[in-house]
């Protein structure tokens, strides 16, 4: 088990190196440099050249790359051109916001999708299943931003049940005050996101249950006199969760990636919004750092998914 994990981590190293080279090349190809916007437009070209020299921008590209990597490994992601703060602290802030929002979204997502998937699979072809499949079609067909805007307009502006932007009320105080204010800011986006993201999970679970309940091993379990409830929970359901477990790792690391659309619609200062902002503001240091982070998260997510799968499915376990 641990050997497999170690091997997988080792395989990740060249992947990460490749990713970093691509990201670095992209950053080099982008217009502008660390001084764009930082220095006074009246600075003489001589002054700029001196700064470039001082920051090593005249060094050969490989030297610059190695320096960049060294800084990365020390947690130094550079300065944001626009916000004039270290990218690392900017991201740390946003990542925290995103993490809590995503965690809440995921809890809602599974809280809604799993009972729906089970009900649809259990009652295949009956009214529960048909109602859920209508729900699935609708949520699948509606574009996310339309749905979010509708929700924001209805529950935020019109009914005024939830705040419409930000993460915490300015006047919130005390641990619990801040806690509840944050929660209040996150509930609407989290629920809206969960509702519209259920399709995949519901479908995988439904199909899994329908396929598994006619499997021979289920007949075997019944032939032992195992009560139907146990047959369902212990045999059918466990096997039906495998496809969901296959994505679990990516879902978990995705918690830090955030959602571009929902964070933008709700002006929620998270990773997704930071990503969009850094594109529109041409904040290239932040952008490259984010791409590097998203890439790493994807690789880690795959690794985590594999580890989870090997924990739940003995056929995948490697000795």
């Amino acid at each position, binding site marked *: 088990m641990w050997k497999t994990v170690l091997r997988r981590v080792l395989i990740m190293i060249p992947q990460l190196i490749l990713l970093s080279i691509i990201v670095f090349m992209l950053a080099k190809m982008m217009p502008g440099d660390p001084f764009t916007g930082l220095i006074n437009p009246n600075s003489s070209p001589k002054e700029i050249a001196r700064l470039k020299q001082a920051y090593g921008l005249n060094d050969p590209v490989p030297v610059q790359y190695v320096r960049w990597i060294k800084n990365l490994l020390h947690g130094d992601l550079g300065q944001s051109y626009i916000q004039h703060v270290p990218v690392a602290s900017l991201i740390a802030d946003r990542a925290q916001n995103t993490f809590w929002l995503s965690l809440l979204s995921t809890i809602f997502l599974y809280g809604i999708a799993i009972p729906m998937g089970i009900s649809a699979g259990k009652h295949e072809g009956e009214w529960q299943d048909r109602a859920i499949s209508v729900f699935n079609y609708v949520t699948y067909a509606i574009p996310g931003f339309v749905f979010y805007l509708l929700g924001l307009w209805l529950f935020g502006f019109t009914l005024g049940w939830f705040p419409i932007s930000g993460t915490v009320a300015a006047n919130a105080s005390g641990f619990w005050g801040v806690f509840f204010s944050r929660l209040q800011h996150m509930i609407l986006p989290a629920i809206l996101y969960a509702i519209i993201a259920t399709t995949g999970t519901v479908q995988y679970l439904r199909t899994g249950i329908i396929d598994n309940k006619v499997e021979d*091993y289920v007949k075997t*379990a*019944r*032939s*032992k*006199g195992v*009560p139907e409830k146990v047959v369902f929970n212990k045999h059918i359901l466990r*096997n039906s969760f495998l496809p969901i477990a296959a994505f679990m790792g990516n879902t978990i690391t995705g918690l830090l990636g955030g959602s571009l659309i929902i964070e933008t619609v709700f002006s929620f200062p998270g990773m997704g919004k930071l990503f969009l902002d850094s594109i529109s503001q041409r904040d290239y240091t932040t952008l490259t750092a984010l791409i590097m982070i998203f890439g790493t998260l994807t690789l880690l997510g795959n690794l985590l998914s594999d580890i989870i799968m090997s924990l739940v*499915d*003995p056929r995948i376990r490697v000795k």
Partner: protein
Amino acid sequence: MDNQQNVLLDVEKLHTGYRLQGEFYDAADGIGFTLKCNEILAIVGESGCGKSTIVSSIVGLYDRKNTRVEGEIRYKNLNLVNLSEDLFNQVRGNNIGMIFQDPMASLNPLMKVGDQVAEALLYHTDMNKQQRRDRVIELFNQVGMPKPEAMYDMYPHELSGGLRQRVVIAMAVACKPEIIIADEPTTALDVTIQAQILDLLKKIQKESDSGIILITHDLGVVAETADEVAVMYAGQIVEKADVKTLFTHPLHPYTRSLLNSIPQSDGDKDDLHVIQGTVPSLKNMPRTGDRFAARIPWIPAEAHEVDPQLHEVEPNHFVRCTCWKTFHFQDEG
């Protein structure tokens, strides 16, 4: 000669129909037989004749909404026809053990094989965890698994087909059931493994005085294992006899055709007989006249009974229809 005391299972006028587009069609159409203890009863016939339908009717493994079961299946003082799910759960695994065709598919891939066998004990005994484990290891020994202790913690994919089928057999006999039903237990296995599994079934039957219903489409398996044989065609039993009589004096055209189609190791290949046509599908099954007539078209219609009955032509030798009296193979002129 029939000792009523010995009868384990008495099936009478069993009709099992499946709903197809709103209507029920009987896949088992008036089945009757008895199973005694210390007996291996084989039910043989081509695929689609309704053998598995009989099995699922006995143990209640059918979809209640789309299946109609009528008639009588007596086990002790219990009629198993349309028993409640709870009562079936008390009988299944406890009084009746089941073995299925494909050992690759009949074990849960996510559970240790030992735990899967122990699960049978969980619902029918009051053993604690350790006792169940010990019993499973004892069972693994009994069914000839090497290193039974280590086998307990294996997962199905780590075992060969033959070993998996031994696990399934251990599961079936865990609670010492009086009746064991094996539905094509060797069909999915290699020939060499087949013989071992059949020997194991015979051994278990002898040790436990149980009765076994062995479902197969392979007369070779019947010859090797069975005491009594029922030959089934298109939802009905067409011939029933003890194994010796059936192989030496087969009467019904279907039985004779089946026997004729077994490759004889010493025989001439050219003699190999293939039965024309196929078993009709459930919807197209003829409900009147001799159901097998369509596959022996050279036999004149008058040779068949209008409503073929099962006749006892000799003590304990039953044949359906009277066409056997004049039946000959096509090339016999």
